[in-house]
């Protein structure tokens, strides 16, 4: 019986105008967005390769350990084709310096100001916004239209359990939608494969792609179930349509944006700029303290500008610098730790609130799977920090430059062969690591499906078919 209803729903839908609109939208937008995003990725990859080779060309011969600036350059994520996420916002380069610490840079130019203004039309946008809207337009009248034209009454007059009707309606609508969706996705992936920009059919990439597709199906299904639920709660198609559009706007545009505002009010955190100023103040204070300590030692023991004096200076300087460096590191680490802790709390709160909207869960899942999300942001900062520590230890500590007020500059350049300077290689999170973070959002999408369908069932068994 369910099969009969599914077949009827599919036929009824396929003969409708909305199916034609969905078909055209999917066939045009999905392959186009994949192709355009792939070209953008290709360009970003070329920029990355060029930056790396230019930097390596510039780093030759001997450099002094005091002034050398060591760069780390991050390649773009291939999966940014599907979800741009934070890709354009995250630093693509960082510089490890002796005096200013670690400097993050985002030197991408705005090639397309309109895209920056209106947002990128990637797969995430198409599924998250366009297809979720199509899903509710598919199902808003699933029950009300049948009630209005009397066919529901006629169907229920048979020996037909109501849950068969509801399952049939859900499956019929969803399968109909799958036709244009699967076709357009297949074309998009084929275009991507033929272009040779990135090969998605290999190992972990293929698994990521499959999980992305599964998450998108779960997400779209949430809106089918939501449409079904509202349709069982209303008597007229127009009422269902208006109610659903209102709910859709709330879920898509209001809740995800309002969540971080709420989190900022509930849990305010200092800005990154304030933290940088605090760090700069710590560095200045330590530098002053160092200068004062060295001045004292210099005046007492080392007022001698001979080579012997310089050696004695380095001998006496070392424990003072080591002590103050440790103090500086501890203070900087404390500021950074406190900031990260509070920022993470705020972020967790905002993410938690935003997850009331299925779009938030879908966005988190898709961006993490595409390595353009929050995990990748943390990963970049962590790897940049580790790289900076390595450079400090192996490069910057090989020289010094002490400005002692009233007594002048004391320095040792510490010449270093650039070949021996460690190079930065970005390590993306493994799929298993990503899945540990993403499962909650996949689970939530499941939960929304079950919740909306169960609610639709509860209302439909009591639905007045007269």
């Amino acid at each position: 019986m369910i099969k009969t209803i599914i077949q009827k729903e599919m036929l009824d839908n396929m003969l409708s105008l909305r199916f034609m609109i969905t078909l055209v939208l999917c066939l045009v937008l999905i392959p186009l967005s994949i192709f355009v995003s792939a070209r953008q990725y290709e360009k970003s990859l070329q920029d990355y390769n060029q930056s790396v080779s230019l930097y390596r060309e510039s780093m030759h011969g001997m450099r002094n350990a005091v002034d050398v600036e060591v760069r780390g350059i991050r390649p773009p994520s291939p999966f940014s084709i599907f979800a741009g996420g934070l890709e354009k916002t995250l630093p693509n380069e960082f510089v490890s310096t002796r005096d200013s610490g670690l400097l993050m840079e985002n030197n991408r130019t705005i090639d397309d100001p309109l895209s920056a203004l209106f947002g990128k039309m990637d797969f995430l946008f198409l599924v998250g916004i366009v297809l979720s809207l199509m899903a509710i337009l598919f199902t808003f009248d699933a029950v009300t239209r049948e009630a209005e034209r009397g066919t529901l009454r006629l169907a229920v007059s048979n020996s037909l359990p109501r849950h068969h009707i509801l399952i049939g309606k859900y499956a019929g609508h969803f399968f109909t939608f799958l036709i244009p969706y699967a076709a357009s996705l297949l074309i998009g992936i084929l275009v991507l494969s033929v272009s040779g920009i990135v090969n998605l059919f290999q190992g972990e990439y293929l698994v990521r792609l499959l999980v992305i597709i599964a998450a998108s199906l779960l997400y779209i299904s949430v809106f089918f179930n939501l449409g079904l639920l509202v349709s069982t709660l209303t008597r007229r198609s127009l009422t269902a349509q208006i109610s659903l559009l209102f709910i859709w706007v709330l879920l898509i545009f209001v809740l995800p944006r309002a969540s971080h505002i709420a989190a900022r009010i509930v849990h305010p955190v200092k800005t990154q700029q304030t933290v940088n100023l605090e760090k700069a103040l710590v560095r200045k204070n330590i530098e002053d303290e160092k200068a004062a300590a060295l001045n004292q030692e210099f005046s007492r023991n080392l007022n001698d500008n001979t080579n012997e004096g310089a050696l004695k200076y380095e001998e006496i300087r070392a424990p003072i610098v080591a002590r103050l460096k440790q103090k500086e590191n501890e203070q900087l680490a404390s500021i950074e730790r406190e900031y990260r802790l509070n920022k993470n709390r705020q972020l967790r709160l905002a993410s938690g609130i935003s997850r009331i909207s299925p779009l938030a869960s879908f966005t988190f899942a898709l961006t993490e799977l595409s390595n353009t999300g929050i995990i990748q942001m943390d990963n970049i900062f962590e790897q940049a920090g580790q790289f900076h520590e390595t450079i400090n230890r192996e490069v910057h500590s090989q020289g010094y430059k002490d400005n002692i007020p009233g007594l002048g500059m004391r320095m040792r350049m510490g010449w270093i062969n650039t070949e021996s300077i460690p190079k930065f290689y970005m390590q993306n999170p493994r799929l298993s690591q990503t899945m540990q973070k993403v499962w909650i959002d996949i689970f939530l999408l499941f939960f929304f499906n079950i919740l909306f369908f169960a609610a639709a069932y509860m209302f439909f068994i009591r639905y007045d078919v007269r």
Partner: protein
Amino acid sequence: MLQAIDLTKRYEDGLLALDHINFEVKQGEIFCLLGANGAGKTTTMNLFLNFIEPSDGTAFINSIDVTKEPLEAKKYVSYVSENVMLYGNFTARQNLDFFAKLGGKTNLTKDDYYKVMRRVGLQEKAFEAKLKTFSKGMRQKLGISIAIIKDADNILLDEPTSGLDPKAGSEFLTILQDLKKEGKAVFMSTHDIFRAKTVADRVGIMKDGRLVMLRTREEFLEVDLEKIYLDYMQEPAA
């Protein structure tokens, strides 16, 4: 067989829509329920189809309590509603095929569908035409063919002749007579006293939720049924 025993329906707002109705429709019998709008005819129909539950009393289909075993009871009943809209984008045959399958008839062929549509007087060219091109009368005929194809023991018809032209109305009466000959119990609610007189074996008149008159064919042919009906309609509510 259809049977109503003390069937009562009081809505949440206190309105008594049906007040202890008792009747039965035997196999091979046509029972017409007459009454003005709001008299309780459609409520009676809805109770037999389990669209609503009775406040008191019981509706039986083939001795099965509709409230207790609705799915079992509905196996033995077909239904034709007043305004049959059906699926406009489907052809007549596709509509018939869908509802036949819902009624449990899964092995029917195209010829079986055509045969039923011919029987209700639909033109051949309409069989594969989309329903949105159909007139109200044609849709009504298709609705009747849906009821026929289920081949249930009992048929409920809610104002089936409304909107039918005289020729279609006459053809419809012939179909009812045929169904009666096949042993079906036909329960029809209608305003159309003339058609009721033509085909009914028994007639009931409803007013304000009560069955105020019940006559066999022999009884109502001896009296002026139109006058009795109008008298009941004009009589102030009790």
